[in-house]
């Protein structure tokens, strides 16, 4: 059996392991669900301030609660996309289990992908809860094709995963102080239009600062998903963010894999693979 055939079994092994570890901290899960419900409820009341808001420029923001909930749900997923890969390595290093995992016939990229699989399962659940609580308790309606929204979600997550691979490479060599995490973590929430329309950045912060949002993949992903889910647009009307994401993926994927390969070789040469 080659590595590719064994990949699903190995990913399954990591998901089951992480699930077991997760349920061994039941309180954590319960509190997370409660906190999501708390955030959705808070946003519902804040959204009531904007009842009757009809500015034509911000068509995605006619129902601010729907915009915030899609923003938070998608941001949660995106953050997992770029942070879970580096976190997977870091966590195994800190637990001291990376060495024993790497003693099995499994390569490092598989370890990283498989160790982050549970994070995506979790992110899917929690992202769904944002949307579900909005729909179930506060009458938020979603229109358009869920499949097309899913395509955007996957595409954007892949682009962010490329940045995640760069982040993991950084963690492997420098151990701490990952600049990608800082840049994307704070940048996505502020510049991607999670809580407010990106057009406001141009109006209030000037064109130079607002250009930051144009280099963030999450801006295009979120824009595409909102256009589909909230405005009910079809594929022909979302080609611009779609093509931008494809170009980003085409450029970042080979580059990030190249950097990752170099980082692994360096760590093995220095014998620092398991240090943190």
């Amino acid at each position, binding site marked *: *059996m*080659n*590595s590719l055939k*064994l990949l699903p*079994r*190995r990913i*399954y*092994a990591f998901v*089951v*392991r992480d699930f*077991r*570890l997760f349920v*061994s901290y039941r309180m954590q899960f319960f509190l997370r669900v409660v906190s999501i419900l708390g955030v959705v409820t808070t946003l519902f009341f804040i959204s009531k301030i904007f009842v009757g808001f009809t500015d034509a420029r911000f068509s995605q923001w006619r129902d601010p609660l729907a915009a915030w909930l899609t923003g938070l749900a998608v941001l949660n997923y995106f953050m997992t996309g770029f942070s879970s890969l580096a976190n997977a390595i870091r966590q195994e290093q800190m*637990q*001291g*289990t990376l*060495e*024993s*995992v*790497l*003693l*099995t*016939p*499994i*390569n490092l990229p598989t370890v990283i992908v498989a160790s982050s699989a549970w994070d995506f399962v979790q992110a899917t659940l929690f992202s769904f809860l944002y949307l579900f609580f909005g729909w179930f308790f506060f009458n938020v309606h979603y229109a358009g094709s869920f499949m097309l929204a899913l395509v955007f979600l996957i595409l954007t997550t892949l682009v962010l995963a490329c940045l995640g691979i760069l982040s993991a490479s950084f963690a492997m*060599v420098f151990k701490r102080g990952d600049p990608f995490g800082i840049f994307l973590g704070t940048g996505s929430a502020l510049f991607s239009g999670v809580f407010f329309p990106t057009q406001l950045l141009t109006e209030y912060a000037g064109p130079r600062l607002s250009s930051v949002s144009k280099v963030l993949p999450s801006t295009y992903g979120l824009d595409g998903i909102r256009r589909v889910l909230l405005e009910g647009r079809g594929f022909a009307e979302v080609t611009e963010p779609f093509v931008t994401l494809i170009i980003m993926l085409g450029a970042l994927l080979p580059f990030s894999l190249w950097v990752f390969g170099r980082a692994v*070789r360096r760590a*093995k*040469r*220095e*014998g*620092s*693979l*398991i240090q943190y």
Partner: protein
Amino acid sequence: MQPSVPLNPHRDSALPSNAPIDTGSAGPAISIRQLSKTYPVPFARLKALLRRKTKAPVEALRDVSFDVFRGEIFGLIGRNGAGKTTLTKIVATLVQPTVGTVAVNGFDSVRDDEKVRMQVGLSGAEERSFYWRLTSEQNLIFFARLYGLGDRLAKQRIATLFAQLELEEVRRKRFGELSTGNKQRLAVARALLPNPPVLLLDEPTRSLDPLAASRMRELIKTLARQDPPVTILFTSHNLAEVETLCSRVAIISAGEIRAIDSPTNLRSINSDAEVVRLTITGLSLERVEAILNPHFDQLQVVAGETVTHISFTRRSGDDRLDEAIRKIHEGGGTIQRAESERPTLLDVLESYEAQK
């Protein structure tokens, strides 16, 4: 532990792929050639550019070459920091050599690292290498899946290993709740999970009680004797254990292999002198001294209540012992007890360390 039962009679059928290459019964299972490892200083050039002080690169291994043959229990002894762990990690593909090669059953540790890992099981002394909130069984199932074992086969294998290593009682206990000895045994169980033809054991009896340690040694011997045999690279600070188990021993000091041979030969190469102790009756202290002193220098004679103890040094093959026995008998004495003490591996190790 029940070492009489073969652990892996069906080794290859259980493995997902990369079945071990049969290199012939006499072929080396581990072949190490001109291996050197220097840990570089991270970002040395950048630090030099910034004129920051840097430590010197650490030379952990220097020109190490030896073979470990199939079914052999090969001991690696040396002081802390001598290079044992680095060597073991290179064999296990966790660290890349700077120069030289390591082949395990014909697979190169750098080029074919995944195939090498199918051949090798490593049991280290690191407690943190398990998931503390998972049970013993859950931990092993996780690692079995990484080896590509199906769940049914994995559970069968784990049950066998738990029985052989006397771990059944802690099957459902979280790893964090296990005693140090059980953690150690679980590490050995994990190393044996894929039925590896090569086993790297780093102090496998360190935290075990004397009885459990003895059973572990029996298990190790059984593994090396079974068909097909398991090749074992064994590191330990317990030199008596190394002498008991290993057919050959390498002494490593400051990254260099100083000697490789059987424990018996190592002792005799280092010094063929032995101390002979005789307990005699029927002769007084003065009489013994009168008989033996003219013929033996450095003779020590101590009078007991009813016996006299003598000790002297001889070289193997000389006739000093024969002569002593003859003189005692001629003088009317009887030898009650005779003992000889040869240099231990500790003496050998100390002598190599002193030569540094």
